[in-house]
């Protein structure tokens, strides 16, 4: 085999591997999507059928049984709301840790990350009681607070590592040019970090959107986001695969479309941030 052939084979094998992994990861989503167009009977038939007459019944029933717009709105408010609040807290925090590190900065960062190591269920009871006592059960406020706290460590870490890579001299130049710390952040750091901040925000939104544990435990109907709506279709007494799939498809769709839509901006943002 010539060197050229070897190289071609290598490229082919790498490609094959990548496609296999991608397809395996994508398959459940694809299956969910087509199942949502089947009847309940087709959905559980063995062997499963790939060719069938698609029906929109499931979507109609889901919309009848639960108010999709209501849950979707809850998801939007909680995920976007908590992401915005988390960014407002995380940007100054990451800025000060990246540009004015103290002796304990590393410890603080580790401590923040360590809060993510505690299983959520470990604090379920105290948080539930707190929410109950403050009248926050089944409220979007409770979810926004919890989502904010839940993602804050990750957001601070991501922004911190990006800020740390910004050349310090650019900020010093701004300082010499008469910039106050506020000017420095707003006129130099933020414009240079558009890409990093948007990808961090997108990650946070996705994490909130897909969050189920707290949504299920702290909401009933008023504040229930889409994840809670999906869960209401996984009933122990009956098999509603098709409806469950339809609900899941409806729940996924907005965030998938949003992410896809943001992709271009994200790539632009990330390359825009190139400093050199």
């Amino acid at each position: 085999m010539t060197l050229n052939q070897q190289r071609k084979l290598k490229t082919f094998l790498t490609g094959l591997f990548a496609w296999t992994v991608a397809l395996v990861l994508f398959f459940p989503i694809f299956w969910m999507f087509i199942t949502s167009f089947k009847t309940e009977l087709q959905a559980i038939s063995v062997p499963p059928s790939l060719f069938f007459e698609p029906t929109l019944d499931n979507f109609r029933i889901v919309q009848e049984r639960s108010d999709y717009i209501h849950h979707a709105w809850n998801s939007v408010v909680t995920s976007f709301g908590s992401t915005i609040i988390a960014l407002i807290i995380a940007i100054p925090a990451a800025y000060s840790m990246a540009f004015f590190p103290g002796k304990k900065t590393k410890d603080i960062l580790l401590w923040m990350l360590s809060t993510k190591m505690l299983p959520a269920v470990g604090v379920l009871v105290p948080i539930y009681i707190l929410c109950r006592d403050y009248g926050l059960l089944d409220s979007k406020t409770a979810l926004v607070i919890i989502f904010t706290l839940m993602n804050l460590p990750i957001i601070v870490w991501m922004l911190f590592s990006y800020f740390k890579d910004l050349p310090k001299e650019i900020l010093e130049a701004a300082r010499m040019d008469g910039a106050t710390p506020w000017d420095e952040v707003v006129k130099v750091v933020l414009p240079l970090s558009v890409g990093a901040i948007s990808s961090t925000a997108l990650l946070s939104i996705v994490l909130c959107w897909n969050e189920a544990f707290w949504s299920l435990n702290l909401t009933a109907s008023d504040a229930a986001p889409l994840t809670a709506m999906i869960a209401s279709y996984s009933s122990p007494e009956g098999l509603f695969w098709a409806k469950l799939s339809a609900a899941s498809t409806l729940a996924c769709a907005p965030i998938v479309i949003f992410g896809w839509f943001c992709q271009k901006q994200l790539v632009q943002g990330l390359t825009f941030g190139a400093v050199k």
Partner: protein
Amino acid sequence: MSYLAITELQKHYDNYHALRGINLSITEGEFVVFVGPSGCGKSTLLRTIAGLESSTGGTIELDGRDITELASSKRDLAMVFQSYALYPHMTVADNLSFALRLAKVSDAEIQEKVRSVSASLQLDALLERKPKELSGGQRQRVAIGRAIVRQPKVFLFDEPLSNLDAALRVQMRLELARLHKKLGTTMIYVTHDQVEAMTLADRVVILNAGQIEQVGTPLELYRQPNSRFVAEFIGTPKMNLIAANKLVRHEDSLAIDLLGQNIMFPVNRLKGPLPESVIVGIRPEHMTLVDQGGDISGRIELVEHLGSEAYAHIQLSSDQTIIVKAPARSELKDGQEVSINIDVSEVILFNESDRVISVIPEEA
């Protein structure tokens, strides 16, 4: 009168004493260069003046005002960084006007100032470009323009030319000298390149291990160094240093035994007590090669021809190698035995603790 006065300035890092009591007075309009080997504290001193590092003792006064504790943004100093530190997300025009916009200068005035600065630095055609679309030299000019446009009290330069290639560096050096002449603003310039220091400075401050070793005009430092450190640091090729242990004091001269031959050093050029031994310092251009009968002799190891001149590396009988400047077209051969005459009037003597113990005679 002193415009920028630095008194007993100290800077401690965790377990490192970077500035050890700096005292320096700079007059208005002066071009002062801080020079020294890496780690000598020259950049730290500049950054402390800028307010980018806080001092741990001492004071800095600018134009009669104590600025030691003042934020960088309020000191009215402009700085040019080694990496240029342009704002990557702004066009050249926005880079130039950033400080003015922060200071809430009127739009008309900003436009006027940006136009005049960009004209004087040949940046007109580049105003709408982003820094990444510029070459190194252009970025450097934008960085300088950004400093000039504000008309600050003092310009601070932190090794501004070290990222440029050699030809461009010489050109920019010249532009900076012109700029200083034109603006007449006080400039403080940090470099490790002694050629930049010698060519640009009104006064050079030589730093070593966090302390000022010597302050003086370039020529003073060259002709009358205080210490062996300064003598070796200034001048290319380096000053030759030869140790001499046998000294005999005569009526009006001192006989110094250099490798078996005496050179006579006039006593009236000595200062302080006479030590047991001395180190004789002599620059390459103050020695001449002769066929025979010179003060010392040796064998040519290597000749470097620079076109306008040549440098002969000569191995002495003590195995030490010294450098002697020779005429450009001298036909010196490697391995050739030569004799060297020393111009005693240019000899500098150092004691065992490397301090100078001779003075240069007054110019005739």
